[in-house]
């Protein structure tokens, strides 16, 4: 994949994290943490597994860590791990229904949120946040999937 395309992918991921950064300051009061950034990254690996490998995952993670995280290495770690799991099962995912995909990706993002709280902010760890975030991120995934697919087709196939 060309550098320009990597830059586009990275910008969409950063945009997702920026959305999280902006909205979560309001939603967290209602025990809800959105996770657009992580879902967008997952989408790109899911949609183009042959183009996004370990190096890209590390570099995207590093960029996100620099701008949005409280600890360098956190997003790197999760991006690499997620990328590896998606690569392993990518063809199985292709025969999954939307519901199954939603559950898987929302589950991954909830695991990401849980680890973030456990590692970086254990005092604020809350099961209510995890449950609500799981449900809402599962719903969001469907919309995000449609939008990102349309975007990918427009950008990469034109």
């Amino acid at each position, binding site marked *: 994949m060309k550098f320009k395309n990597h830059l586009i992918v990275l910008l969409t991921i950063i945009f997702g994290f920026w959305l999280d950064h902006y909205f979560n*300051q309001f939603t*967290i*009061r209602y025990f809800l943490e959105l996770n657009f950034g992580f879902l967008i990254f997952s989408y790109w690996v899911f949609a183009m597994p042959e183009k996004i490998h370990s190096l890209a*995952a590390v570099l995207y993670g590093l960029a996100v860590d620099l701008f949005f995280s409280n600890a360098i290495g956190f997003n*790197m770690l999760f991006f*690499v791990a997620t990328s590896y799991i998606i690569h*392993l*099962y990518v063809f199985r995912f292709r025969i999954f229904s939307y519901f199954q995909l939603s559950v898987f990706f929302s589950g991954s993002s909830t695991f990401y949120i849980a680890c973030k709280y456990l590692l970086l*902010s254990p005092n604020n760890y809350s099961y209510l946040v995890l449950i609500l975030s799981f449900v809402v991120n599962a719903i969001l995934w469907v919309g995000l999937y449609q939008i990102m697919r349309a975007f990918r087709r427009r950008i990469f196939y034109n």
Partner: protein
Amino acid sequence: MARSTPTYTPIRNYAIALILSVIFLYADISNQTFAPLRGIVSASTLYVQIISRSITENIRFTFASFKQNKYLLQENKKLRDQILQIGSKDFVEKKDNENKVQITDFQDTLSNIFKPNDINVYKIASIDLRNYFCCSSHKIFLHNPNKINIEENFSVFAGTSYVGQTKKTYMNFIEVILLSDREHVLPIKSDFFYCDARGKGKPMLISCKLNYQNDDLKNKIGDIVFTSGFGGIFLKDIEIGTISEIVSITSNEIEVVITLKTNPLEENFYGIISKDINEI
């Protein structure tokens, strides 16, 4: 028949990337290895925000001048800023006067401490609201356009009480760790205890653990808590907040939760006493 779909996923690269990430994460969490890097990135981001904000304001002012309101708007903004600055300085001067009456032996020391040049007032540049509402890290950045040299661990006040202490300076910004940050420890006292209160990682809350029974302290909710002055960073006898909750941990241990007096979200100007003070 194949049991799994054929994919090409070289484990070696992923393993190296995973180990590298873990090393980075461990180094940063345990030793804050990349804190300066993050600080510089945050400061650069703030620059971009401030520049874009000033461009927006200029555009707004241009439109306002068309309506012949520009002068009034500027004057209004200037006066508002001055009132807030005076309010912040007034708090320290009041405390200075009180201390001069109470501790006459230390009058010289106090007057040295509170020379007007030692108190600088800074405007807030940014507060990380997402972390403030959800997580352990509670920090703000103050705008330091004149690049005044501010060292680590100077006390920071706003409104009528302390809000935190300086941590580091990045470019034209001063990083301030708030009292409610999980890493911040503040020596406090009330009429029945002394303790080192740690931030709870929740807005405006700090807490400390004491060896008391809950039943002994039921009527202490609402009591005022002051700084004890230990540690030499914060002046003693400054009202910090009130006891809002007492939670039993074991039969002989309780956690006293204190709600802070000053809400950082309501303050625009923060004062830094830019001189080391010893216990007084």
